[in-house]
C-alpha cells in the first residue's frame, strides 16, 4: 500500500485532479476518507459529478483537510492498493484563520509521511514572458521541489496545460525542468492522465 500525496499551492487544481483521475481509472463512486486536524475520520461517497460540484470551487482553500481516496487495482493475480491523498493548498505567509493554518500544518505532516509526492503547479501562473527562463517557481514551490527531490520519489505535475497559449512550446517547459520526472496534465480535460497512470503504476 503506497501513499501518494497531491500537494501544491492553493487553486492549482489538486482536488479536481484527484476526482478526475479517480474517474479516469474507472471508479464510479469515489469514497473519500476525510481526516481532520485532530485525526478523526469521516467517510463520504460521491459520484464524480457530485464530487466536482461539492468539493471543488474557484475560491482558494476549498479543501480544508486531507481527503484520501483508496484505489485498488489488480497486478497479475493479486491486488494492490494505492492511496491518493488530496491536501489543503499551501499559501505563503501567516493565514488569519486558525482552521486553515491547522489544515496546512496537516498537509506538511502528510508531506513528510508520503511515499510519492505529486507536486502540482499551475502553468498559467508561472509563465513570465519577460525573462529568459519562461517559467518561474515561487519560493514555496521551489521548497517543495527541493524537499521532494531529496526523497527518492517525486513528480511534478504541471496543471492547466489546456490554458497554455500555443506560442509557448511544451518542449521549452520540459527543457527547463530536465532531470525531474514531469508531466503536463490538465485536470479539466484529462490530458496527460495516461502517462501519470503508467508512472504511478510502475511506482506501486
Amino acid at each position, binding site marked *: 500500500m503506497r501513499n501518494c500525496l497531491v500537494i501544491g499551492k492553493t487553486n492549482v487544481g489538486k482536488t479536481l485532479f484527484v476526482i478526475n483521475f479517480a474517474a479516469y481509472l474507472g471508479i464510479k463512486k469515489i469514497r473519500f476518507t476525510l481526516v481532520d*486536524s485532530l485525526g478523526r475520520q469521516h467517510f463520504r461517497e460521491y459520484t464524480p459529478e457530485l464530487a466536482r460540484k461539492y468539493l471543488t470551487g474557484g475560491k482558494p482553500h476549498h479543501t480544508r483537510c486531507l481527503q484520501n481516496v483508496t484505489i485498488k487495482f489488480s497486478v497479475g493475480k493479486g491486488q494492490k492498493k494505492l492511496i491518493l491523498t488530496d491536501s489543503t493548498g*499551501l*499559501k*505563503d*505567509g*501567516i*493565514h*488569519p484563520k*486558525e482552521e486553515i*493554518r*491547522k489544515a*496546512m*500544518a*496537516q498537509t*506538511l*505532516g502528510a*508531506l*513528510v*509521511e508520503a511515499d510519492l509526492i505529486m507536486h502540482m503547479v499551475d502553468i498559467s501562473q508561472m509563465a513570465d514572458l519577460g525573462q529568459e527562463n519562461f517559467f518561474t517557481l515561487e*519560493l*514555496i514551490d521551489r*521548497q*517543495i521541489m*527541493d*524537499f521532494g527531490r*531529496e*526523497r*527518492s*520519489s517525486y513528480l511534478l505535475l504541471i496543471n492547466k496545460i489546456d490554458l497554455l497559449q500555443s506560442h509557448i512550446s511544451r518542449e521549452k517547459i520540459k527543457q527547463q525542468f530536465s532531470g525531474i*520526472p514531469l508531466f503536463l496534465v490538465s485536470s479539466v480535460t484529462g490530458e496527460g492522465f495516461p502517462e501519470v497512470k503508467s*508512472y504511478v503504476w*510502475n*511506482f506501486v
Partner: protein
Amino acid sequence: MDFSKRFKVSKAPEERDKKVDKRMFHGLERGEITVTQALRNIKDYDKSISDINQENSTENIALILQELNQLIGLERVKTLVKEAEAYIEIQRRRQFYNLINEPLVLHMIFTGNPGTGKTTVARILGELFKAMKVIPKGHLVEVERADLVGEYIGHTAQRTREQIKKAIGGILFVDEAYSLARGGQKDFGKEAIDTMVKAMEDYKTEFVLILAGYPREMAHFLSVNPGLKSRFPIHLDFPDYCQEELLEIAELMLKNRQYRMSEEATLFLKGVLYEKDRRKNFSNARFVRNLIEQSIRRQALRLVKKKETTREELMLIAREDIRLEELEEVEEELTFEKLFGDW
C-alpha cells in the same frame, strides 16, 4: 529555529525515519511562523536524519573494506567486492529516476584448498552487504552436511528449510558442500540440494547462498547436478597462498597480537613454509595460524621462568619458539580423523 538540533532525540533510526514530530507544526498552527519557514524546518529535520543514517553506513562500509583489504592476496575477491559496490550504488541512482532496477542475485560458489580464507571472506561479505543494505541482517549461518541431512525420508527437506529460514536476511554458508552429492542414488544429500535450489528461487533476494568446498570435489559436485552451476552467478576461486604471502600473513597475525619475529625466526619460518609448500594436505593460512599460536605459547613458557622481562622481550618471538614436530603430529592426526569421518 534549528530543528536539526532540537529533535536529535534518542529514538532508533528506523522508528524516526517515518514518524513526524507533530511539534514541528505547532508554530504554524499558532500562526507564529509562515509556511515557507515551516517547510525549511522540515527540510532541516529530514536532512539531519538522513545525515545520521548515511554517515553511519558509509563509515561502516569503509571499516569493512579496510578489514577486507587487510587480507593478504585474494585479489579476485577484492575486485568482486568493488564491482558489487559500484553496481549497488548505480541501482540506487537508477531507482531515483524510477528506472527498472533488477534485484541483486548474489549466490556464490567458493572453491579453494583448506585455509585459503573462504569462511573469513564469507563473514566479511555478510557484514558488507548489510552495510550496503543488500540484505537486512547480514549474519552468517554456517552449516555442513550433518546440519542439513536428516535421518529418514522427508526429514532432510524439513531440516534444510529450517536452516534456510534461519539464514533469511543473511548468508547461508554451506561448508564442504560436495559432501551432499556423495553417497549415490539413495543418499538424502540430494534432497537437501533440491530443497536449496528451490529456496534459491523463492527467496532470490532475501538471502545469499554460498557453497564452499575443495576445488576437485566441488568440480565433481557441480558436474553431478547440471542445473546447479548456472544458478550461481559468482564463482570465486581461492588460490593457494605462495610462500611470501604466507610469511606476510604470519607477520600480520603477530602484529595484530603485538608480537614480532626476530630475524632468525623469520628466516627459519621462510624455510619451513618453502618446504611445506610442496606437500599435500597443507592447510595454508590455517597452518600458519596454528604455528603462530603455538609459538606464542612457547614464548610464554620460555619467559615465565625468567624473573624479570623487558617490554622488548615480551614482544619478541625467537627462533627457538617456532617448532614444527608437534604440530605435524597433530595435523596428521586430524587428517586421519577426517578420513574416517567421511566414511
